[in-house]
């Protein structure tokens, strides 16, 4: 199964890379070109004396190039993929050069190593000591954080817009010192409140209370279910053993990539990939963090389907997951999607999820029969029973949504809560079309 040009362009880190990649999708740029089931490769004559060696792992869409670019994928990776789509007849050489086989085998070894490392004996005493030390640090950090939260409430949040950056940064750093990076991120989010927008007070309180709930929950861990306990620990920043997770049985399904979002988090790039299982009807989040300018381990392209076994992190609402096995891209077996029938049904679902996990982040959902409608100067989505929810003002692809709808109801993948939803894709003429 080959990617479309649109999907390849969706991988580009920016507009300049798109254009540069397009320019390199020319046969004359590539001295060698080859492809087999596992990889796509080519040598591109750049400005240097030696040609750049560009390769793509086709099984999980990963790139490697010998060029000095800090962008991933670089223009050569994009150009090579585009050329392969435009002129597959030029990729006739199946003989894998050493530089490609080396990389592919290293990637396989790395995967195997991840599994085998779990076989190593664990020094349980040392592990327990480390855990206790961390628990103490986190507890102390949480106490400090609660005092800080109470100060805010005591003095009133009206003073928040005037706070300097270091007010937030200092507490964020204190949480890092306390080995609670999850809490540090939540503090940072508080500081990033758009204080110039109407209604900031309510949004600020939402985030402050989520932070408070996590800190309170941590102090009552023994009272909650094991699954919720895991959610609390993970939200604070305790990591789960990925190797251990991979030993568990997952859900084998055809997964549709509903959408993705990347944000800069300090020196890292945070990438959220939202998936939907066609048979299991489950939503999943593949979260990746990688240093800026470093290759991403896995490139998922919105609108594509892939067969994979996903293991979900233990949670009161299983959602975050990792890919245990992936067998490549596929096409949809069926274009029937059973999303929520109307806004009330979705609100009931939201209530259920909130009951299970009160501080959960926004999750994607698929809802049916939604028509865009303009009321005064705002756009809403109207269901078949006449219920309405607002389209988020942050939504950047309104015109595409309207063009696809023409006012008629659509099945839409959305992310948000209560009265504010961001569309991330629609089913149009039996095809899922990402709105990105």
């Amino acid at each position, binding site marked *: 199964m080959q990617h479309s040009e649109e999907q390849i362009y969706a991988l580009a880190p920016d507009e300049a890379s798109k254009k540069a990649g397009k320019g390199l999708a*020319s046969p004359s740029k590539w001295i060698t070109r080859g492809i087999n089931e596992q990889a796509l490769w080519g040598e591109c004559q750049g400005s240097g004396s030696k040609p750049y060696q560009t390769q793509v792992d086709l099984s999980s869409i990963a790139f490697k190039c010998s060029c000095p670019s800090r962008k991933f994928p670089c223009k050569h990776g994009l150009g090579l993929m585009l050329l392969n789509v435009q002129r597959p007849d030029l990729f006739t050489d199946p003989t894998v050069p050493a530089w490609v086989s080396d990389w592919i085998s290293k990637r396989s070894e790395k995967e195997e190593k991840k599994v085998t490392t779990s076989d190593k004996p664990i020094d349980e005493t040392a592990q327990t000591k480390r855990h206790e030390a961390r628990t103490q640090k986190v507890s102390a950090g949480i106490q400090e954080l609660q005092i800080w939260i109470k100060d805010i409430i005591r003095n009133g949040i009206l003073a928040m817009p005037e706070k300097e950056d270091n007010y937030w940064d200092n507490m964020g750093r204190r949480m890092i010192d306390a080995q609670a990076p999850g809490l540090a991120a939540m503090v940072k989010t508080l500081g990033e409140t758009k204080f110039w927008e109407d209604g900031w007070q309510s949004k600020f*309180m939402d985030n402050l209370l989520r932070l408070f709930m996590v800190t309170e929950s941590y102090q009552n861990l023994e009272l909650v279910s094991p699954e919720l306990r895991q959610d609390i620990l993970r939200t604070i920043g305790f990591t789960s053993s990925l190797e251990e997770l991979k030993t568990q049985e997952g859900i084998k399904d055809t997964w549709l990539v509903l959408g993705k979002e990347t944000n800069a988090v300090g020196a890292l790039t945070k990438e959220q990939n939202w998936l939907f299982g066609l048979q299991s009807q489950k939503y999943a989040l593949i979260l990746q963090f990688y240093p800026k300018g470093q290759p991403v381990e896995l490139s998922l392209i919105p609108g594509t389907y892939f067969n994979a076994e996903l293991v979900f992190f233990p949670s009161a609402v299983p959602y975050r997951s990792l890919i245990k096995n992936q067998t490549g891209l596929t096409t949809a077996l069926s274009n029937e999607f059973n999303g929520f029938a109307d806004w009330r049904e979705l609100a009931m679902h939201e209530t259920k999820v909130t009951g299970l996990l009160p501080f959960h982040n926004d999750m994607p959902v698929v809802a049916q029969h939604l028509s865009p409608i303009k009321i005064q100067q705002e756009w809403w989505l109207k269901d078949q029973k006449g219920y309405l929810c607002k389209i988020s003002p942050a939504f950047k692809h309104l015109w595409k949504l309207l063009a696809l709808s023409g006012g008629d109801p659509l099945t839409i993948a959305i992310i948000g809560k209560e009265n504010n939803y961001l569309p991330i894709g629609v089913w149009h003429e039996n095809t899922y079309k990402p709105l990105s």
Partner: protein
Amino acid sequence: MKVWDYIVNSAMLGLEKPASGKPDLPEELTAVFDLINGSMELDRESKFLQQASVAYNYRKSGFQPLQKNDLKVFTAENENMPYAGASAIAALSKVIIEDNLPLLILWMQLCAVNNQLVVADLLPEVLDKAANHTSLRRMTIDCSGNRGKWLSQFNPEWDYFGPEQSEEEIWLTGKPEERVSLLKTIRLADADRAREMVMQTWPQENASQKLELLKALRQNKQSTDLFWLESLTSEKGKVKDEMQNLLRQIPNSSIVQKYEGFLSEAFFLKKEKALLGMVTKTVLHFKFPEEVDQTIYQSGIEKLAKGNSGFSDEEYTFYQIIQFVPPVFWEKQLAVSGEQVVEYFVKYAEKFVGSLALAVARFHQKHWIPYFLDHKTFYPDFLEIMIPTDQEKYLLKFIDSLPNEVLQYALQMSQEWSYAFAAKVLKKMSGEPYRFTLAIYGKKIGLIPVEVLDELENLGPEKLDLIPVWENTKDGLQNLLILKKEVLQAFTDK
């Protein structure tokens, strides 16, 4: 006060200050709030934060979407034309990413001619392009169907769809550029009607609009325009200049007649003896008249040659006037054929041959052009009245002697070049890769036939150091031509 509003208000003021009222606690929350309030272990802030957390989850869990059954969703009407095929849509996607206007225009022309529509996915991008490029608007309206019309009502930048306006409405209430565009269209089809429209509104027009309207009348000029144009004696400045410019291009105008009168006094044929009186020959003489109607100099004719070196003041007056006199005048004045007129000018008044050529172009005397084709001088004005094949032939005559001029005019042509012409022009262009960059090829891709794809390998500069620059340009040009080919094939492959 709703409980969540109470929480936010209290948080805004801070707990040090008295609360601004009491919450209307829902029944489900009363017991929980009481339980928290009754705790002896919790301080004031903890109590508030716990109650607020409960209220937050209560709000989220109890969210009720707004219901309005009386809202009618207006939908786009069904289309009555088919959508463009998959290969055409794939080509359009690439053209949009390429951001190439000529290829977009080509795609839209083909789509419109084939009575097909742009698919919904790409409509916003196409509507945006047409918002920025007026030349695309008519085609965009034709190719967007009912979906495009429906969509355009929501975005003020796409107001060019607008309601259908009658010609009269546009003329009386339209934007200046819409009025000028309408006038030009009408002028081509019915010159007198166009002039009458201008005459009707002339007193109400301001100076800049008057100027634009007169410019629109430059095409399809008629002798019937004379009466009105010659009545505009009170106009001043640029409007007056444009009025005079128009009059000088209408053969029967009084000013052209004055020019003819001036030239008829100055130019004449005379028989002279040659070769020691053994033969006679006819010579074209010209002599500046002793008395000159000074109104000639008020009609835009410069009296002094100034920087026009090579001309005396008198010669310069001749040069200017000749170009505003229809060539047929010379046939009558000298009582010879047009071909002979040109021969006499070449032999005895060579300085004015260029001016005569200008008159040929200005008064659309196409049949005179062959009389100039043996000349070494390049008369670019002829191109305006030539058909494309003749333009190419004419330009090729000068491609080696005047490559810069030829390339300049070749790139201004409006029809796609023939293969043979393109091969020669591109050969020249490829020799100067720093001057003719990929951006220029991109802007002019409409002129370049896709057949030259096979010719690209034979192009390029002779200087070795320029070859890498050309190679880059060539790759880009090749991509553009492949894309153009895809666009063309997309609408021919059924």
